[in-house]
């Protein structure tokens, strides 16, 4: 499997080249084009429980697996907002991904929807986060962002605005905090809630906040 990201950073698209017999599992709706040699299967990864959890996590209930069953082939994957796409080899310790950023993964990658706890619920990231774990080396996950993707190394502690969080190493611990000193100041500063990461690892952020964008455009539209 070979994955190339084209049209970066604003209009990024992942071109996934598969050898005969290889497959990739993708979020429903992510496919924009593909070879005729591929076969698509729709399924509930992780069974009914997995499907329900994914749905609550802001992803789709079903996922599609694209398999090159008739010689090699390719599938083109993208998300709907302007922004970049990253292909990441999953480290041995695993990777946390914000559920709405997930696009695709190697079929052997286990993507488990985890209850992120109240801290995530209040953080606006949904109640669930995805924990991606690989069964061996060379297995990747593809995630998308609104805006550019920036990797921030954490060694000690780092605060990330909740709307900018995309993915992070599971070696880090995270907790929800108010970014100001008190409730009033965090409310007035417009910063609200943030995630405090502690430990040593990498954090990927998106340079724009989707919710902020949605509100700034939609507030100018007639009410529904």
């Amino acid at each position, binding site marked *: 499997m070979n994955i190339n990201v084209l049209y970066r950073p604003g*209009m*990024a698209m992942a071109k996934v080249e598969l050898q005969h017999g290889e497959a990739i599992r993708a979020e429903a709706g992510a496919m*924009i*084009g593909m070879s005729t040699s591929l076969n698509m299967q729709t399924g509930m990864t992780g069974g009914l429980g997995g499907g329900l959890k994914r749905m609550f996590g802001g992803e789709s*209930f079903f996922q*599609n697996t694209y398999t090159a069953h008739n010689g090699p082939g390719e599938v083109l994957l993208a998300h*709907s907002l302007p922004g970049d796409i990253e292909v990441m080899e999953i480290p041995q310790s695993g990777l946390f991904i914000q559920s709405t950023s997930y696009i695709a993964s190697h079929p052997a990658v286990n993507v488990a929807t985890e209850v992120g706890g109240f801290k995530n619920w209040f953080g606006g990231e949904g109640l669930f986060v995805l924990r991606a774990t690989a069964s061996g080396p060379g297995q990747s996950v593809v995630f998308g962002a609104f805006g550019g993707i920036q990797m921030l190394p954490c060694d000690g502690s780092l605060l990330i605005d909740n709307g900018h969080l995309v993915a992070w190493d599971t070696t880090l611990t995270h907790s929800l905090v108010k970014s100001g000193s008190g409730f009033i100041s965090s409310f007035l500063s417009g910063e609200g809630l943030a995630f405090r990461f502690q430990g040593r690892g990498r954090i990927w952020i998106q340079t724009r906040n989707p919710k902020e964008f949605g509100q700034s*455009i939609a507030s100018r539209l007639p*009410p529904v």
Partner: protein
Amino acid sequence: MQFEIRQKPDFALARIQFDAPGEQLLVEASAMVAHDGGLAMETQMQGGLLGAAKRKLLGGESVFQNTFTATAPGQSLWVAPGADGDMEQVILNGGYDVMLQSGAFIASVPSVSLDTQWAGAKGFFSGNGLFLLRASGHGPLFFGTYGGIHAVDVGPNGYICDTGHIIGFTSGLQYNVRKLGGLKNLFLSGEGLVAEFRGQGRLWISTRNATGLAAFLQPFRPRKSN
């Protein structure tokens, strides 16, 4: 006529420079960004009232288009699409036509003729309007989209494209709209309908879909207070 497309793919802008007086470019009404003060501009309904009405009603293009005519060598004109996204140009040579999705047309020379073509019932099911703009003749044609433009050279094996991402294709290709996989996949896969292209030619795919952006924004709209 010289041309170049800058700032691809996010905010593409085409610069067209005329070599000689009398050279012309036909530009979609809202696509002009800037032009040399010496250029003559004429607003007209291409193809007369009926042709223009057909284009507007059926193909989603403007009733009026502007024709720019060079009055001296070296004069320039800049054009761009409305949404953030990419532009592409094709130099038609009479060997094939280009079919464009409604709204994708930006500019062409007068020796390229534009006609709105019935795309058949399959167009209806594809959710992209019933009509396509058919560009034929000779010379440069410019088009644009929301998203990046990805070109696929379709060979004997064909290619499959989500119907919401098709920008255009050359006339050597035929397509059929169908569902991907079985009936279960149609409703559950989230992929809806796809177009399967066959033949020999080039297909242009957009890496984004304006409907997807609108669907993202919809839940943020304010609620009517009762």
